[in-house]
């Protein structure tokens, strides 16, 4: 009896020893900063001078802040374009790669996956010059088919769409891999049975494949939405520096997304309290998206 409780105690001690490094780091770099951010959000803390408690003042201030509204609209815009485009393209590629007659499947998969492992700053630089209005390749290609291309990154209308294209380019391979894994789990007999019953390809897709792929689609959607709300590097790199458009988020804040707004508030304007409150709004948005996903996946499609 004594030896069992001794053994049990010994194991509990070892269990905690193995957990200790992770828990210590978890407290320091996850829990503490999160609580600190929440606390900071209740204060007005200018560069010079003392901090003052303002309660929910920072949150109220957001409601009437045109820059916050602009950055939220830009982010929602980014999400509503990049996420559906990425899902449709990657699902189409995954389905095409599943075609029985296809040769060079592995090669295509490799090519489509390359952007996922391509450092996004380097890629964004290349895209920035591809979108250059006068000697850029994109406008040259458009010129070949008789279209006069816009000023892209220098234009308030076209800068965000150009950056969205890069966002899609970067993520298609990732979504494709998850869809390919999801398609593997669909039993071949089901597709064959549908064909025997005389279902057309489109019927097979909408009635058999898509419903069975539903959990995978939800998963990819949620991950892409979270990525979309956290987007920063592509708009920052593609709008900062270069010839004329020097301020990140430009021209004229047309590419100022939420994280860029938070970064600007905290590290250029030094409004630490207000920036923290805005960062907390980002957290709430991401939590809501995740909770919706959990609710959706708990009721998977039954068959």
């Amino acid at each position: 009896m004594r030896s069992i409780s001794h053994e049990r105690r010994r194991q509990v001690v070892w269990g905690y020893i193995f957990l200790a490094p992770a828990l210590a780091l978890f407290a320091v770099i996850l829990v503490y900063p999160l609580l600190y951010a929440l606390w900071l959000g209740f204060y007005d803390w200018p560069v010079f001078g003392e901090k003052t408690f303002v309660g929910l003042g920072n949150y109220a201030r957001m409601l009437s802040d045109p820059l916050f509204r602009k950055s939220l609209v830009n982010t929602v815009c980014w999400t509503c374009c990049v996420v559906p485009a990425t899902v449709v393209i990657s699902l189409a590629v995954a389905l095409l790669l599943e075609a029985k007659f296809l040769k060079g499947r592995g090669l295509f998969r490799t090519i489509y996956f390359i952007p996922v492992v391509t450092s996004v700053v380097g890629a964004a630089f290349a895209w920035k010059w591809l979108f250059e209005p006068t000697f850029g390749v994109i406008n040259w290609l458009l010129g070949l088919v008789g279209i006069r291309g816009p000023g892209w990154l220098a234009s308030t209308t076209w800068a965000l769409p150009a950056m969205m294209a890069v966002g899609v380019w970067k993520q298609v391979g990732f979504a494709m891999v998850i869809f390919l894994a999801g398609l593997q789990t669909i039993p071949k007999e089901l597709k064959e049975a549908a064909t025997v019953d005389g279902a057309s390809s489109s019927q097979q897709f909408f009635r058999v494949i898509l419903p069975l792929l539903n959990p995978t689609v939800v998963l990819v959607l949620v991950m892409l939405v979270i990525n979309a709300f956290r987007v920063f590097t592509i708009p920052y790199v593609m709008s900062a520096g270069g010839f004329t458009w020097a301020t990140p988020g430009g021209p004229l804040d047309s590419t100022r997304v939420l994280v860029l707004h938070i970064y600007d508030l905290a590290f250029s304007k030094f409004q630490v309290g207000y920036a923290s409150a805005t960062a907390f709004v980002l957290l709430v948005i991401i939590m809501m998206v995740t909770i919706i996903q959990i609710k959706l996946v708990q009721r998977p499609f039954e068959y």
Partner: protein
Amino acid sequence: MSPDIFSGMTVKAPACTGMPGSKRRPLALLHLLTYVALLAGAVWTLLPLAWMVSASLKPLSEVMRIPPTWVPLQPTLDNFRQVFVQFPFGRYLLNSVIVAAVVVVSVLLTSSLAGYSLAKFNVPGRTFIFFLILSSLMVPFQTRMIPLYRMAVAFRLIDTRLGVMFPWLIDAFGIFLMRQFIATIPTELIEAARIDGASEPFIFVRIILPLTKQALSALAVFTLTANWEEFLWPLIVSTSEASRTLPVGLQGFAEQYGTNIHWQMAGSVIAVAPLIIAFLVLQRQFVEGIAMTGLKG
């Protein structure tokens, strides 16, 4: 690439001749459309990389030429030399490698240890700890970055390599992944080793780690890919050449030498090449590693 694929098509076409004439044409057309769509996508995917490599190998005057010359008329390696001469690019590369290496090792170690404990040791409060770790997956880095910056200031970590790496030394997703994976290892294996008198660290190193190789390599790839291109945090915490990693170094370079595209592209090639080469060599591990993030959430 393309000749290969088209030869595949010509092989396929005769195979369809056995079918009734009415059915052959639409099917061949469908095949053709599939290849055209996939090829167009592949061209779009490779376009920026092709342009980057091409521009890095030619003088500025040729970079600006319209129509573009994909194969340089005056090929030169001078751009790569200039990148190292004009800027401490070797330093950026070294910083990137050191930061990525430490982060990957730390994430693998803390995740496998904690995952093992949560899966196989019945410590009081483990359900709560696991719940806490799972919930933290929802907390974006961007919400924590201002406090992390203030911590870096307080601990004098601004502009140091440790400052660049410390927010990434643990990954809640890694703990979750390793816990799920280790839970599938039979407990009898561990108990048998205990009866034979093996110490707990010995069991972890000699039994658990070898059996989790697949998950560990996936986690390593996932962590490395994310860390290699991390931009926001080093942008905040690195204030000089001392601690800049490749992505921030490149950005500083671009801001200072805005119009020297040929040098920028040479720098970009150096930044993107290591991971792309690693991917081409270890394709299976990379695809598995990224697909495993599908477990997330």
